[in-house]
């Protein structure tokens, strides 16, 4: 066991897999000698060699393209996209190719690759360093979409992603890299060293997909969330002293519908939180599934708390971010509803 922040945990996952499996390699913009703009790959080139962790041209489409070709040829590439906001030039390769190669060839060719990319706001990154595009990927059959909220899960889920025989999009909430974030930008920063989930085994372990993690247990309502908002949810629940099930979904596709339905059937009330833009966000799908499977248990309308339907504005970052006040309002509303 060791103390790791999320950056170190992610790095450790890659390090473990690179040590175990010569077919695993890592590439992306600035990931080589420099070790990535968030340092997630720092040291991997030195440890594993120039050809196993290297820089690429600034070409997200090209990065995805070579990853697919390498994966089809039997390797297990891990491709870093520097910010999720820059994944769109690679969108065609991901949605039309990586996600469909298996289907198109009826299993003859596959693309067992992992795409790692930082998501979310909270670092004054403005419109193009803050996006949460998960819903644009959960609509794509053939892809899996994963998002951890802490170091322990990050490492275990990333190892599972690398070992998966299908393409996995692995989203890293950048605001959580160094510590949990409870939604108040003015509060002193907390880091992972003081948190249980910063306790991470040094070797190999897996955290399986399609399993939500319950981080609080309660009877009054269910909160469905993931990524940075997991911690904001916890802060709000603590603040309000309500009794809530908080599910950190972790795996958006495939989704742990069983745990979701079980919880909502118990509480009868549900709040859904995410940082992404509201319309057609992943919250819509969650809401749809809850209403499909728990309709007769619902005692109040499900509430969504999300980013607004605007780009992420730089100076208004904290007005955009769905912070604890909005979360608390929603909780009160479903409890009253």
């Amino acid at each position: 066991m060791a103390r790791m922040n999320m950056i170190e945990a992610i790095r450790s996952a890659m390090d473990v897999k690179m040590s175990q499996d010569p077919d695993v390699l890592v590439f992306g913009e600035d990931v080589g000698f420099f070790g990535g703009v968030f340092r997630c790959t720092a040291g991997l080139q030195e440890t594993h060699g120039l050809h196993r962790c290297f820089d690429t041209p600034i070409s997200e489409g090209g990065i995805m393209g070579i990853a697919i070709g390498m994966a089809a040829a039997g390797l297990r590439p891990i491709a870093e996209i520097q910010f999720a906001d820059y994944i769109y030039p690679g969108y065609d390769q991901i949605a039309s190719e990586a996600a469909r190669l298996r289907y198109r060839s009826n299993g003859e060719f596959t693309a067992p690759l992992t795409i790692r990319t930082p998501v979310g706001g909270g670092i004054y990154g403005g419109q193009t360093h803050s996006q949460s595009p998960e819903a644009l990927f959960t609509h794509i059959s053939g892809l899996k979409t994963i998002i951890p909220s802490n170091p322990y899960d990050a490492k275990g889920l990333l190892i599972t992603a690398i070992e998966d025989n299908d393409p996995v999009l692995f989203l890293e909430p950048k605001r959580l890299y160094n510590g949990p974030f409870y939604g108040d930008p003015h509060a002193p920063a907390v880091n992972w060293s003081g948190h249980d989930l910063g306790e991470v085994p040094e070797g190999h372990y897996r955290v399986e997909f399609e399993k939500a993690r319950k981080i609080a247990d309660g009877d009054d309502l269910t909160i469905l969330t993931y990524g940075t908002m997991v911690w904001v949810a916890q802060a709000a629940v603590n603040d309000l002293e309500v009794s809530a099930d908080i599910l950190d979904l972790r795996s958006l596709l495939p989704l742990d519908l069983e745990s979701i339905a079980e919880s909502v059937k118990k509480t009868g009330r549900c709040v859904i939180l995410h940082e992404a833009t509201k319309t057609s966000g992943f919250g819509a799908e969650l809401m749809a599934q809850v209403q499909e499977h728990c309709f007769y248990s619902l005692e109040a309308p499900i509430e969504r708390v999300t980013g607004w339907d605007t780009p992420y504005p730089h100076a208004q970052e904290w007005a955009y971010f769905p912070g604890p006040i909005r979360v608390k309002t929603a909780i009160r509303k479903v409890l009253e509803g």
Partner: protein
Amino acid sequence: MSKKSNQSRLYVPEPPFRPGDKPDYSHIKVPAEMTPPRPDPMCDAHETAAHALGLIRVLRLTGEKEGPWDPNINADTLRAGLRFMMINRAMDERMFNMQRQGKLSFYMKSTGEEAISVAMAMALNDNDMIFPTYRQVGILIARGCPMQDMMCQLLSNKGDALQGKSLPILFSFKDYGFFSVSGNLGTQLIQGVGWGMACAYKGTDDIASVITGEGATAEGDFHYALNFASTYRAPCIINVVNNQWAISSFQGIAAGEGETFAARGTGYGLATLRVDGNDFLAVYAAMQWAAERARRGGGATVIEHFTYRKEGHSTSDDPTKYRPKNDGEVWPFGDPIERLKAHLVKIKEWDDERDEALQKEIADYIRSSYKAAEKLGSMATESGIAPETMFEQVYETIPSHLEAQRAEFMIENARKVGEE
């Protein structure tokens, strides 16, 4: 060449001829000399810059072979090439007709371009992965893929290894080094470069050969392919089949008025060749050269195969809507099958008798293969593929949400069968 627009100062390129015009390709010179020279495959890329503007040829239209690029292959190999090309053409004829009869939903011919796919497959090793487009069935033929297997894919029937998931002609035959063809143009180019990088990473001698039409070079993936191939010196060959047309758009729309397509590679520091795509020997020689370069660590070569799409784009297309009817007939570089045949006759390795025998053998092969394939189903009959297979191979194992959908489907399908 292009008519200048008088209506605007925005320049829009136009092809030299439209329906009703009498096509005249006298501006496209068939070079008299068998230039350019053949440099060492490990030469500096700059030494091939001129090759991007010239045209590698071996076979004269009259059948003689000549010049530094003669690959010196024996008559048996030449006859094999001829046979594959003729099979290709016969298959195209047959499947086009069967599409017209409603047996398959769609088909695409490669008429006039057979030398490119066949010579490519023959010049490469069987372990080299080819990333083809929809116009290179010749690769499969040359690599020995059974005709019936291809036809079953075209008919989307229960003999189709893809279980009807893909459009006819979007083959996938891993055993024959034929990468799954995407319906999205261009995407495979950079994947092929990645495949080549994987070969280098693993330390094998294999290479990748990727193919695009001249029209699809305008996609970003083409740029990615050239750029990444240059950065990592990937062992691969990037082939541009310039058949002058992209559906209804002539090659000038793909920016072919400004420069040749081979020349695109020059600016990336890649070796570049431009070859008469209707000349079996020239294509073979160019592929051999580029494969040697790639295998020896010299990196990628961009090859433009200069040819002509003699028929419509696909069974959905009517080319007389946008170009003169007899365009393909007056193409100055002749027909690849006729040219190789003329050569074999000239060197006394072919004659009418053998030709007739081969024609017949091929006709039988196509006929019997088609018969056997059609027995397994077609558009006009039942495909024989269980529809619930559509839920398979989305992922390695079916996840629970998809399993639920499959279950729902099974119930609905039973109901449907009931209602019918």
